[in-house]
């Protein structure tokens, strides 16, 4: 199988603090890959590196074989990688409809066009409607995103992430802070939207991880100590020691 995302000896330092300490990872095209690890292990930093928010100190990132190290987030996004954020990151005073539509526009090729009436772009309208129905928010379209409930904002966050049709999706703790039933909804949604795509997900809820993931990588103190199928991760001695040990201090 081809690799969708490949990290080679990735390293990130903030001043003297080394957050990511030589991570190599190969995420196969079409797999659902979970990244787990104790708080402060560097999971979100890893996402920030892959999505272009931070520049790596050394090492390289490849997307479908292309070296994207040093590219800006929008350049990486245009190559088919889209991400969500751990802390909800939406357009608060725009309507739910506008939030999704902003995320659709580039993928439909409209770029910065200032000579077209946006309301007459049938393909954009249809795609926006499709995403709204997918995240179950078609009846909330006209509401400003900032007044939505927390769970709705998380769903909108996922909607914005997938709206551009990216084939690699990075979700950073999509179910954090959700109730049991909200989490079930979210997992069903994630399963649906990641169909036929590559998914990389950071998640603390082990139920979600083992339910969803084809493979799991365990990140501890800036290094991946194991990458394997869920059953094997569970029985991995090193993981049990390091991860459960560190998690015990939370």
């Amino acid at each position, binding site marked *: 199988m081809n690799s969708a995302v490949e990290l080679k000896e990735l390293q990130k330092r903030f001043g003297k603090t080394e957050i990511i300490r030589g991570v190599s990872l190969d995420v196969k095209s079409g797999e659902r890959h979970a990244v787990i690890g104790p708080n402060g292990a560097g999971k979100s930093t890893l996402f920030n590196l892959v*999505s272009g928010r931070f520049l790596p100190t050394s090492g390289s990132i490849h997307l479908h074989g292309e070296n994207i190290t040093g590219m800006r987030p*929008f350049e990486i996004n245009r190559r088919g990688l889209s991400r969500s954020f751990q802390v909800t990151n939406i357009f608060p005073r725009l309507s739910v409809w506008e939030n999704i539509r902003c995320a659709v*526009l580039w993928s439909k090729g409209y770029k*910065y066009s200032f000579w077209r*009436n946006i309301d007459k772009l049938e393909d954009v309208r249809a795609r926006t409607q499709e995403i709204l129905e997918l995240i179950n928010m078609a009846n909330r379209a006209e509401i400003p995103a900032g007044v939505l409930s927390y769970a709705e904002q998380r769903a909108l966050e996922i909607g914005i992430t997938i709206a551009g049709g990216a084939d690699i999706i990075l979700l950073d703790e999509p179910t954090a802070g959700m109730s049991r039933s909200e989490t079930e909804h979210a997992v069903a949604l994630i399963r649906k939207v990641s169909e036929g795509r590559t998914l990389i997900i950071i998640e603390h809820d082990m139920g979600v991880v083992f339910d969803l993931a084809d493979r799991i990588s365990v990140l501890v103190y800036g290094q991946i100590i194991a990458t394997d199928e869920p059953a094997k991760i569970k029985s991995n001695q090193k993981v049990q020691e390091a991860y459960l040990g560190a998690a015990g201090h939370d």
Partner: protein
Amino acid sequence: MSNNTMSARLKSYGIWIAAALLLLILPFIFSSGASHTTMCLAGIMIIFALSYNMLLGQTGMLSFGHAVYYGLAAFVTAHSMNWLAKNGVPIPLLLVPVVGGVAGLFFGILFGSVSTRRGGTAFAMISLGLAELVYSSSLILRSFFGGEEGISTDRTKLLRVFGYNFGPQIQVYYLIAAWTLLCVVLMYALTRTPFGRMCNAVRENPERVEFVGYNPQFVRFIAFSLAGLFAGIAGSLAAINIELAQASFVGAAQSGAVLLAAYIGGVAFFVGPILGAILVTLLSIKLSDFSEIWLLYFGILFITIILFAPYGLSGLLMMHAQFWRGPIGGRISRLLKLLGAYVVAAIPAIIMIAGAVLLIEMIHHVSQKAAEGPMMHFLRRPYLTVNTASAIPWIGALIALFAGFFAFRFTWPTVASVWHKALADAQRSGS
């Protein structure tokens, strides 16, 4: 075409047709020469303020130097008109604002390529620096800026079309009105394009924009360049209007005026800067008829709006849209009830303001014009002569100020209760 799309089209174009008709008949309603002059200035300010709001309201860019594009375009226009007239180039005055627009666009691209790399405070500071840079070069580059006299021009010397030479102010009015309408339509259309919506997204959350495929810096750059284009058209019309371009056109006061106009009108709605431009133009012309220190009152108005109506005049108007529901009779009666409550509150408010203004004017008279004697013409009206040496007007002013304030304060609960009743009524009939 079906009836449905016809009526939808009429609805969307109707407002522009109505605006065009209004612009056509306005000079007959307000037929004095002074009002024609005022309307010309208002039209120019409308374009300028809307172009400014492409930055502030639409894209979230606070510029302290928007007059740079207005002013530089005015100079380019004056030079171009002189050149066209001298060489007898057959280009009519009607098309000269295109030159200003191109000049504004050029300088917008030039300076924007530097200043739009950053948003927020960094952008604001760079805009201030660029404005100072251009203003100080206006004192140095005398051949382009013409020193203190500026560059004068003669709009009647250009190619005549159908015998119009644009000498009379009324002809200039129609030239400005046509360009104002065109620019307003174009700027409104811009807000409804993919680019326009991404401007709003950049205003809301530039970081997230990067993760949906857009470069927020480039969005800001286009917005800035296009704002320069429309500011250039406004500056060009200003040069045509007074047949002069001078250094003050690029100055801080001009940049400040457009910020005030946009803010007073309200930056959150497209119509806001239009209302603000009209009000600011009227105030800056009329207030000086009543007081020497009119700029002070202007500043107080600005502060009042920032404090009590942060969404500006258009925000205040839009707050009333929620009463406009259900049967037409109910709508009108609700608004009439509210209007009644406002009048009740306005009476003590006016007394309070009159007391404050009298006090300010007397202090100003005593401190600045003691040499003219104690008699003061309040509001510059001889029939309102006040003796500042007597205690009576001072006591009267203080009483009006405080009694007015407490009476005004007393009316607030009444206004609030009328408001809530009307709102409940609107919600009942709307559902």
